[in-house]
């Protein structure tokens, strides 16, 4: 499976969970790996590369962290839009 396709799948999973469930890095890797058959470590590597690009962010609530798609407002505040 191409890297771009895996990236697309990661975004799909996070989009689907938006407002319903906060997904941790581990959850995203597990779901994408189960749905695509790609090794979890490979998914993790790709997920982290998207985070490094700033297109995904870690989020924090009550001491627990998750991965989320940043809002436009936040990207503007950060000067990334």
């Amino acid at each position, binding site marked *: 499976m191409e890297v771009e396709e895996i990236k697309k799948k990661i975004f799909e999973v996070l989009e689907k969970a938006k407002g319903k469930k906060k997904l*941790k*890095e*581990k959850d995203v890797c597990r779901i994408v790996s189960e749905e695509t058959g790609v090794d979890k470590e490979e998914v993790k590597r790709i997920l*982290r590369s998207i*985070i*490094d690009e*700033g297109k995904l*962010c*870690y*989020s*924090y*609530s*009550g*001491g*627990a*962290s998750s991965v*989320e798609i*940043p*809002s436009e407002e*936040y990207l503007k*505040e*950060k*000067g990334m839009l």
Partner: protein
Amino acid sequence: MPKKYDTPLLNELEKGPWPSFVTEIKKAAAWNKMAADELGQLEKSYRTRLVYWKHGGIVGVRGYGGGIIGRYSELPDEFPEVAHFHTVRINQPTGWFYSTDALRMTCDIWDKYGSGLTNMHGSTGDMVLLGTRTESLEPIFAEFSSRGWDLGGSGSAMRTPSACIGQARCEWANIDSLDICNEMTQEFQDEMHRPAFPYKFKIKVSGCACDCVAAIARADCSIIGTWKGDIKIDQDAVKWYAKNGTDIQNWIVDMCPTKCMSYDGKELKIDNKNCNRCMHCISKMTKALKAGDEKGATICIGSKAPIVVGSLLSWVIVPFIKVEPPYDNLRALIRKMIEWWDEYAKPRERIGELIESKGMRSFLEYIGVPPVPQQIKEPRKDPFWFFHGDDIENIKKLEAEEKKTGKYKF
């Protein structure tokens, strides 16, 4: 110019002989707009008895999941300067040794981008810088990282390891707590900056049982310096203490938690096999008493503060382990602990809570540490499980190996 607020309620907290946080915020508020609005919002909170802060959310620097804790005011129209009031955690130098230049540099950066208010230090150990805006986060990170500093941990991650001042400034340190802490910080960089755990995980290293970083009460993994063998007694120095006003019977012997000491007015005796290495006598008579020569650490697991469910103290899992560079045994042990916890824990469940629900046997079997009688929850208590026949055999094998090689395993 910063806005000036009338603060009659906060002013009450400036009375009395002690330093006041209100006075400090006022000093910053004289020139910093964020500090001024922080003061205004706080006065309102005191007046209405309501808190107006929200915390969390997507706030951080690119690629990092820890080190920044988002904080927003619920009253951004009334107090616009604290609409964003994020916290920045900076990984402290091990043992909290700073040059005055480093502190000046930190303060200069914070005066430029933040509220001018800091906590020295947060309870995990990081240097905590209070209050800045989202757009300032990347510049702040660039300023610090270009000078060799890094963010600390936050969220469901490895939190910044911390250590006592150890051998750098303390005669009681049985292990090089500073080096161990530094090595663990380097080892777990990925886990600190990319939060992927069920919840927080803290490592604290104390050079001795005096436990100046309170590892036994605050760290998921506490590494506490100890020794094997007898306490070395200098009887002449004992006499010196007695002659110079130390009440050895009342202050030392009677305070020994295991009552393993005796004093006849001339000679101090210690029944070493009943000593639990609490450090009380050594810390009171440093010139007369010294720890044994075989130095190492006790590894404890599972303490935590009361957040989510009640507080826990650490349990001994490895009564004695040699800790010497490159600490491969320690790294491997901690990685195994984390692996087990990561596999079975629910979200926001600390390792100590998981051990309580899943059982110490399951934990020990996974990490490959044999059950031994010293693995107790509290000093002078029985071990907290039933031994199987295999366990007894394993202990015997271990003892035989130690005897044969002369090297302590556990």
